[in-house]
Every structure is written in structure tokens, then in C-alpha cells.
């Protein structure tokens, strides 16, 4: 009798167990995200709150947008420069367009390929980095020279001109090339060399820029190291500034700053991509303030979330400064140039 009741008890136990297991298995199958469509991505602990980071203290914003935005007319704008007379040069698609604010005229230099950078030198000469080589034009848009290619791997993304030569940032080869005015290579700057303390450029994406400072040194962004480095024109590494941080005074992401320009007073303007920020640093590299953050630069406000991978890989906004200290920002998403002037101190 006891054995019979034991057997019955076992059968009930097994029946309940099987029922529970069946329910658990069915729930597991139903909840199984076979196609990865229910994924919520990485856990919060692995993510920065971009929305939060995009908010900038209004007291830190020292500039305001002024004047009419310049519509470049490009579908893919890339680079920006301002000449000594105030003309604005924008490189995009397969051309460089010159917007003269004095008489509202627009002229164009047609190119064989897409330009990655543009700069204006003395006598109004325009230097354009086209893929892997430099082309030189006069003010009348006539080509004066086409310098030798730097090789198939080269990708010119930054250019600066002075009386000492033309300096080109080659993101493909992660190096800065110094040319003389005739287009001959004078120096290769920034190749990693532990003996001379040159750290080498880390360029994970096609964002690599430089600027010639008033102190006679070359400032080159080292985006992978999240800092700006100073070199003599002969390529000696002097010092670096910038810290890796998501806070407003640092540089964050994989590779920032993306672009740099020099202010008339000796400070610098940097542009970051991803979390788009245009910021001011003094000549020592100390954070001063913000020109514009995501809430000012992006129409929707808040952080810009990339919808397509190719957007994330695109170049960042470019920046230039005129003699009056006005800051020009090329919005490579809307393909417009925004002009920022310093806020009046109350």
C-alpha cells in the first residue's frame, strides 16, 4: 500500500516537474531572440550617456551664431578656409567654392577628384589637397601646379601655409609633409621615433588636421591620443596638451580633436566629431570655453545619434578663423557655414 502511494507521489512529482519544465522551455523558446531583433544593445554600464554629455553649461558658451549662414551648395562638403581679405573657401564634392562676402560673388575651382583640405597662401594662392596630392591655383582659379602624389595610401586631410612652406597632414600615412613653395618635400614630420621622443600619430579615421601657430610652432592634432601636439617646423616634438575625457574640457571618443584652427590672439579652436563640440583653448592648451556644442550645432538639439554607419565614419566639422577673430564652422551634415562671434560681455 505504501509502495503504491509512493509510486503515485512520484508520478505526481514527475508530472509537475515535466509541466514546469515544459512551460519554462516554451517561454525560453518564445523569448529566444534568434534574429537579434529584441536586442537592447550594450548594458548601461558599458555606455556613456551621450544625451547628458551633450548638455553644456550656458556660462561656458562664449560665442553666438551671427550673420547669415552660407549655403555651400555641396552634397558633401569637406574643408574650410578663410583668406586674409575675408573670402571663405569651401572644398566639397569635386570643387572649391569661394564665397566673397564683400560683393556676394561666388567663384568655383573645379577639381578632378574630391578635395580633403584647402588653404590660402600669400599672393592669394590656393592650395588644395586632392586625395593623395596637392594642387595649386591662383586667385583666378587657374591651376598653377600639381605636385607629385604621395602614394596610393595617402589621404590629405589638413593643410597649412606660411612663408616657411606648405604643411600637409596625410591621414593615410599618419604623417605631416613639409613642402617648399615649388612642391618639393623638405621634411617628413611626426614619424614615430623613440630616440627623438616623437610619439607618432595615431589616426584611426580620416580626421587629421594641423595649424601654424603665432609662436612659430606647428600644431598637429593627434586624434588617437586625444590631444594636440606641438612641433617645430623642422619636425622636433616640443610638447602636447589635451586630456582624454568626456567632460567639456577634454577630448572623447575614438579620435578627437578632428580639426584645429588658430585664433588671432594665440589661442586655438578645436572641433570634435561624434559628440560635436567646437571649443576654445588658450595658447598653453588650457580650456577657455565653448563656441558651440551639440545643442547649438545640431538642428534637432541634443546628441547626434548616427543612423547609418557611414555617417559615423564621415569627417567632422571643419573650422577656420578670420583676422577679426570670427569663427567659421563648416557643418558637413547640412553643408552650410555658420559664423560665430564672441558674445558681448555684459
Amino acid at each position, binding site marked *: 500500500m505504501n509502495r503504491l502511494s509512493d509510486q503515485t507521489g512520484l508520478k505526481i512529482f514527475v508530472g509537475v516537474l515535466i509541466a514546469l519544465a515544459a512551460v519554462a522551455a516554451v517561454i*525560453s523558446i518564445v523569448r529566444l531572440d534568434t534574429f537579434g531583433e529584441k536586442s537592447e544593445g550594450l*548594458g548601461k554600464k558599458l555606455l556613456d550617456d551621450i544625451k547628458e554629455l551633450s548638455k553644456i553649461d550656458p556660462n561656458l558658451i562664449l560665442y553666438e551664431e551671427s550673420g547669415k549662414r552660407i549655403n555651400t551648395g555641396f552634397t558633401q562638403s569637406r574643408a574650410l578656409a578663410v583668406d586674409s581679405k575675408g573670402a571663405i573657401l569651401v572644398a566639397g564634392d569635386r570643387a572649391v567654392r569661394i564665397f566673397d562676402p564683400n560683393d556676394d560673388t561666388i567663384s568655383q575651382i573645379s577639381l578632378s577628384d574630391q578635395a580633403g583640405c584647402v588653404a590660402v597662401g600669400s599672393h592669394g594662392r590656393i592650395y588644395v589637397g586632392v586625395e593623395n596630392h596637392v594642387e595649386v591655383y591662383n586667385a583666378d582659379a587657374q591651376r598653377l601646379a600639381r605636385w607629385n602624389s604621395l602614394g596610393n595610401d595617402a589621404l590629405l586631410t589638413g593643410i597649412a601655409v606660411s612663408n616657411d612652406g606648405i604643411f600637409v597632414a596625410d591621414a593615410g600615412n599618419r604623417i605631416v609633409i613639409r613642402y617648399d613653395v615649388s612642391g618639393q618635400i623638405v621634411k617628413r614630420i611626426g614619424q614615430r621615433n623613440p630616440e627623438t621622443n616623437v610619439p607618432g600619430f595615431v589616426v584611426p579615421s580620416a580626421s587629421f588636421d594641423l595649424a601654424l601657430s603665432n609662436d612659430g610652432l606647428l600644431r598637429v592634432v593627434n586624434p588617437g591620443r586625444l590631444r594636440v601636439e606641438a612641433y617645430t617646423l623642422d619636425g622636433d616634438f616640443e610638447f602636447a596638451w589635451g586630456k582624454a575625457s568626456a567632460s567639456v574640457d577634454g577630448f572623447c571618443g575614438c579620435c578627437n580633436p578632428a580639426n584645429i584652427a588658430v585664433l588671432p590672439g594665440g589661442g586655438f579652436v578645436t572641433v570634435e566629431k561624434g559628440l560635436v563640440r567646437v571649443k576654445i583653448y588658450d595658447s598653453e592648451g588650457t580650456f577657455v570655453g565653448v563656441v558651440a556644442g551639440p545643442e547649438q550645432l545640431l538642428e534637432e538639439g541634443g546628441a547626434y545619434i548616427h*543612423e547609418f554607419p557611414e555617417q559615423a565614419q564621415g569627417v567632422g566639422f571643419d573650422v577656420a578663423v578670420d583676422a577679426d577673430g570670427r569663427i567659421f564652422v563648416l557643418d558637413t551634415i547640412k553643408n552650410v557655414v555658420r559664423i560665430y562671434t564672441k558674445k558681448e560681455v555684459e
Partner: protein
Amino acid sequence: MRRLFYILIATAVLSALCVSASAEMRFPPPEFEGDYVMPTTTTPHPHPDIYEYVDVAVLAAALSLASYLTLKLRSRRAIFVLMMLSLIYFGYWRKGCVCPIGAIQNIILSIFDSTYTVPITVSLFFLLPLVFTLFFGRVFCAAVCPLGAIQDMVLVRPVSVPYWLAAGLRLLAYLYLTLAVLFAATGSAFLICRYDPFVAFFRLSGNVNMLIIGLCFLLVGLFVGRPYCRFFCPYGVILRQLSRLSKWRVTITPDECIQCRLCEEACPFGAIRRPAVEWPAVEYAKARRRIAFLILLIPVLIALCGWGGSLLKNVTSRMHPTVRLAERIYLEEAGEVEGVTDPSTAFRATGRTIEDLYDEASVIREKFVTAGWVLGGFMGLVIGLKLGAVSVWRKRTDYEADRAGCIACGRCFKYCPREHVRLEKNKQEIS
């Protein structure tokens, strides 16, 4: 009791592994500081072909040994040892892949897709157990299949499943096989591999839901002998039919049956058939009429199930990535869902037109209509034949192992008193 304790300990250890498997993967941040030098990109060497042939050789050797142990040596202990070795080699060492169960899909896909070629080793993995079954019965299930072994290992307190219930549940295996063939033939998915409940245990890693499903099978397997093998295994469906034709097969004892019923008690798989006398004439006449009715019913069942299968095209075709993508894009375009998925983003980046995608998806969906008719019809045939089978009376004078259901585990001859006597006699004769 002690065995139960060990099993519970093992279950606890496996559960702990599940917890570690569900932990989020972390990766180190990119190292841009210091003297880090980016390593040069290297291409991993392909898996040497020789290992695949070694696997085939091991499979052939294991099947040969299993045949010898079940038919000649008749030792449950030896079969169990071989089963454990197979679990270690094919399960934990080779991580459950390649396996004959999943190879069904490779074979099916190669039949329907001329661009897909099955490696010879995969074909051998599929064929070898079938050939051995034709000659020696289900020796693959007995001692070579790692999925069977892991379930056999946890079986501690078997309870019998009523015959009618077991027969009904076996339809799930046919349904699973049908769906696996459908999705493999249409290039949609390898269903058997995707829902392998034990592979996560073999790899000590996997989706937490699949680990739970595997754990459920093992929990049920504590009391119900090999639930996956008996009620779900699609390869088992094929082996069952071939085993009916096998030239040699396991017998409870080659000696005279004394009808002690110990074998029936010992078999946890309900594979022992009782002796049966002739039917009374009245019952016989009723059964004849019933079978005649069922035979007439079979075409109706085929047509009904085939029709049902074709109607399911909207559901079944979702397993195909193109159809799924087209549906997603449609929902996004109609504004019925928010956001985008990785596949829809990737599709939009290709520049292909949405209409082109819809056209392709429509063609694929039509294939599911045809396949639904064929495979639904097959399910109807199976149901009809099964109904017929339960109505057929077979006369038996002794307890016998069911030709299809017996997996040659050797438990019955361990318990058979006549087998003990026979083996003792053999020993005496040898000595």
C-alpha cells in the same frame, strides 16, 4: 540515492556555468597610450582537413565497437563506458559539431541548392550511422551520440510514459524533421543546429535561453528516459525506420524467454513489447474495418495537412532572412515600428530598391507554399500511418525489444535472468 546526489551536484555545477555564460562580454578599451604596437593582421590557419577525417574515423570505430558491444559482448557496462567516451569526444572535445543530426540539413540544402556543396566528411557523418543501423540496429543512439549520452547519464529514476502518450509525442519529432527539411531546403536556416538544446553544455557557452531549454530536457531526463531522443530527435525518426529493416538487432536474450517481465521493468524507454495472443474473432473483424477506414482516411489527411502547410507560408517564410528583412522594411516604411535594425540599416546602405527586395521576398514566399504542400502532406501521411500502426495487432510469444524504439542501450540484458545463466554457462565452457 547517492547517484541522485551526484546528479544534483552536477546540475548545480552546470547551472553555475550557465550563470557565467550569461555574463555580458566586456572588451578592453583601445590602447592608444604607451608603447603599444598594433599587431600585424594575421589570417588564422583553416581548420586542418585531417581532423575532419579523424572525426569520421573515430565515428566509424565507435559505431563498430558499439555494434560489437551490443550484439556480441552484450555488456551494458561496456556500452556505458563507450557512451561516456563518445560524450567526451564528440560532445566536449569536438563541441557537438559536426553531428549526424545536423548533417541532415547539409544534405537537404545540397539537394535543393546546386551552389551548395557538402563536404565528404559531413556526408559520411550523415551516412555512417544509417548504414550501421541497417545492419546492426540503433547502435549510434546506444553509445555514440553525445546528445543521447548526456541524457542517459542523468537518468536516475525512470518512470514509464503511457504508450499512447509516447506515440503522440513522437509526432513532434516528425514535425521537427519536417520543419528542419523545409527551412534547409529553402535556404532559410539550419533549425536543428539553431535549437540544439545541449550544444551550449558541450561548449560551456551559449544563449541563456538555450541553456534553460537544455536544462529543462535534463531535468525531465532525470525521470523520463532520453526525452529529446524519443520525442524530438529528427535523425531518430530516420533511424527508427531503418532499424525496422536491420539485418541483425539487439535481443533481450538469445536464450529462451521465461517471461519474468524484468526487461520491461528495466527498459526506461518503453521499448519492450509484451507477448500477445491472437485477437478474438469479433475484435479482429472490428480492427479490419478500422484499418480499412484509416487507409481511406490517409489521402484526406495528406490533403488536409498539405493545405494547412501551404496556408502557413506567412509564418514559416519568416524564417528566411530576406522575407524577414522585407517585412521589417515594410513596417518601417509604413511607420508601424520605431527605429531601425542592423539588417534594415545595412539594406538601405546598399542602395537597392525596396520594390526589388519585396519582389525577391515574394518569390521566396511562394516556394514556401509548394514546400508547405509537400511537407504538410508528409505529416498527414505520418499521422495516418501512426493511426494505422496502433490499430494493427501483432502476435508475440515472448517479450521482445521493439525494432524501431529499441536504442540498444543494453539495460534489458543486464537484468535478464536467462542472460545471466547463459553468460555463466559461457564462462564455464570457456574455463
